[in-house]
């Protein structure tokens, strides 16, 4: 470690004003502060919340994503061998999954960071740290079969249009990783929905449909067919909770996501208010549908099952809590979270075109988050004004 510090100190003058590579200063700085906590503090005003800086915050989030990632790697291999009807050793499964997933992660980071560095360099800014997390989130919400160039295009779109045009990290309206997924979803629908994309190299005879796709087919099913769809494909709730089902890479395992949620909440980085209210919102809408029971989807899927299907849990824990695009006020967070869960289940059940509605619900509420905050603050101001008048 000491040697590394010495090396950095020796090279530093080269990148400072007047040095040989002065133009690349922000790139150098990015690596230096990534490796070591910088000893620079801000000079104006006080806005200290706690002792860790943005890069360290981001590292904790990446850490919280590790369980979901590891499980995703295992599940990718598991689904592959399952579809072929083969049994495989644990190591083989993991290695297969790694070979499938690693390229997606590499592409996401290389493209995203490449653009971030280029923009920082051009504008003379510091390199933004935000992409450390987005770069990991993007692969986790992609289908295993996503062609790499499509991942690259989606990532580039998300970083440039989702983030840089607004001014970079901390300025974006929407969660960049979800922008990447939305772009992918609408641009290349054949690679993002249907039955074939969720399992790598699956056998043709094997149905690769996700539980959500089965659930969506319940809308038109009645009587016996509906019950048989449910018992065949959807009643295995334990597997849906553990995550041994087809789906986007990191979203399948509710357990792994909950471990991440514990890390986020314990470190104070993710807002438990948002997470909890998303789940409550989803459950509420699910319960309303159970009461209405207008079709088999509403009748047969219990409200709590919505919370473990598809990307609901992943979105609630890692996407909705993004501190930049979420609501900021305490009460706003609860409204924001509740509406995400509520809308996600609503769109899922009512619109067969979007079986996975979590992405759309979060992007929609991202858009409204500033409005929610505005009214929460205005409400607060009004209440306090009233108090002043009563006392006087």
């Amino acid at each position, binding site marked *: 470690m000491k040697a590394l510090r010495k090396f950095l100190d020796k090279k530093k003058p080269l990148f400072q004003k007047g040095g040989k590579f002065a133009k690349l200063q922000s790139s150098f700085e990015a690596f230096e502060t990534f490796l070591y906590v910088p000893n620079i503090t801000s000079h104006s005003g006080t806005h200290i919340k706690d002792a860790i800086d943005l890069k360290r915050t981001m590292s904790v989030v990446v850490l919280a994503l590790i369980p979901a990632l590891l499980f995703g790697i295992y599940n990718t291999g598991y689904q592959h061998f399952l579809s072929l009807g083969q049994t495989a050793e644990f190591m083989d499964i993991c290695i297969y999954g790694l070979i499938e997933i690693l390229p997606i992660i590499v592409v996401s980071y290389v493209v995203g960071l490449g653009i971030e560095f280029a923009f920082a360099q051009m504008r003379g800014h510091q390199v933004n740290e935000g992409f450390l997390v987005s770069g990991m989130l993007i692969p986790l919400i992609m289908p295993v079969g996503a062609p790499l*160039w*499509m991942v690259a295009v989606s990532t580039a779109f998300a970083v440039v*249009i989702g983030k840089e*045009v607004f001014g970079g990290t901390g300025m974006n309206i929407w969660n960049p990783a979800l922008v990447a997924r939305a*772009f992918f979803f*609408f*641009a*290349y*629908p054949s690679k993002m929905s249907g039955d074939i994309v969720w399992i790598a190299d699956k056998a043709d005879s094997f149905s690769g449909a996700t539980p959500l796709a089965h659930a969506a087919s319940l809308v038109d099913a009645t009587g016996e067919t509906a019950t048989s769809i449910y018992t065949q494909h959807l009643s295995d709730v334990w597997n849906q909770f553990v995550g041994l089902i087809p789906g986007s890479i990191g979203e399948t395992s509710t357990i792994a996501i909950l471990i991440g949620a514990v890390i986020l909440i314990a470190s104070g980085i993710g807002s438990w208010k948002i997470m909890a209210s998303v789940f409550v919102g989803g459950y509420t809408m699910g319960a309303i549908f159970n009461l209405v029971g207008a079709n088999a989807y509403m009748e047969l899927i219990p409200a709590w099952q919505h919370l473990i299907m598809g990307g609901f849990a992943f979105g609630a824990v890692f996407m909705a809590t993004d501190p930049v695009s979420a609501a900021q006020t305490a009460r706003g967070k609860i409204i924001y979270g509740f509406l995400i869960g509520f809308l996600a289940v609503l769109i899922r059940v009512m619109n067969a075109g979007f079986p996975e509605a979590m992405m759309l619900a979060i992007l929609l509420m991202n858009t409204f988050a500033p409005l929610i905050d505005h009214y929460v603050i205005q409400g607060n101001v009004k209440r306090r004004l009233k108090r002043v008048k009563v006392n006087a």
Partner: protein
Amino acid sequence: MSDKEPLFSAKNRKLLTNPLGTDNPITIQVLGICSALAVTAKLEPAVVLTISVMAVLALANVIVSLLRNTIPSRIRIIVQLVIVAALVILVDQILKAFAYEVSKQLSVFVGLIITNCIIMGRLEAFALGNKPWPAFLDGIGNAAGYGIILVIVAFFRELLGSGTLYGFQIIPQAFYDMGYENNGLMILPPMALVVVGIIIWVQRSRDKSLIEN
């Protein structure tokens, strides 16, 4: 005309060229956005609509300019509307007669030229206060500025969204065989807004004087 001025004096040439760049109706004045979203999925309708708007705008400008001293200012809007509406119907009928396929694609958007803010904007801002010849040039210039953006947007949307340009296959089959796919989002209207946004972004970073504080 006592103050005889050459037909293409520097001032008149500016009327033609300014709307193409620093005074572009779409990217600077942000007018006529709706039709820019609606007709730019393919190049052909974009070009046809551009020509239609050019015909309507240039003629309406000339007519309003000729009548400018006789139109009572309290009813000027309604007079302008009548002139524009008559011209739009004319264009619509001509398209139906000679380019039926395209006119079907454009459907209501030919009729909606009448609501295109650029047209009323130019009539109000320019034709009412200027002589016919400059008004004509102004009409051509603004329609061309509008059209150039339409064509740029349509170029990218058709190329990336359908792999064609003006209906001809541009992206070779070999690409598709290798796994290339058309970008479905490009066909959807929101992408037109994004492309217009990118054009504005590029234009302003090239010409810093356009950035307002």
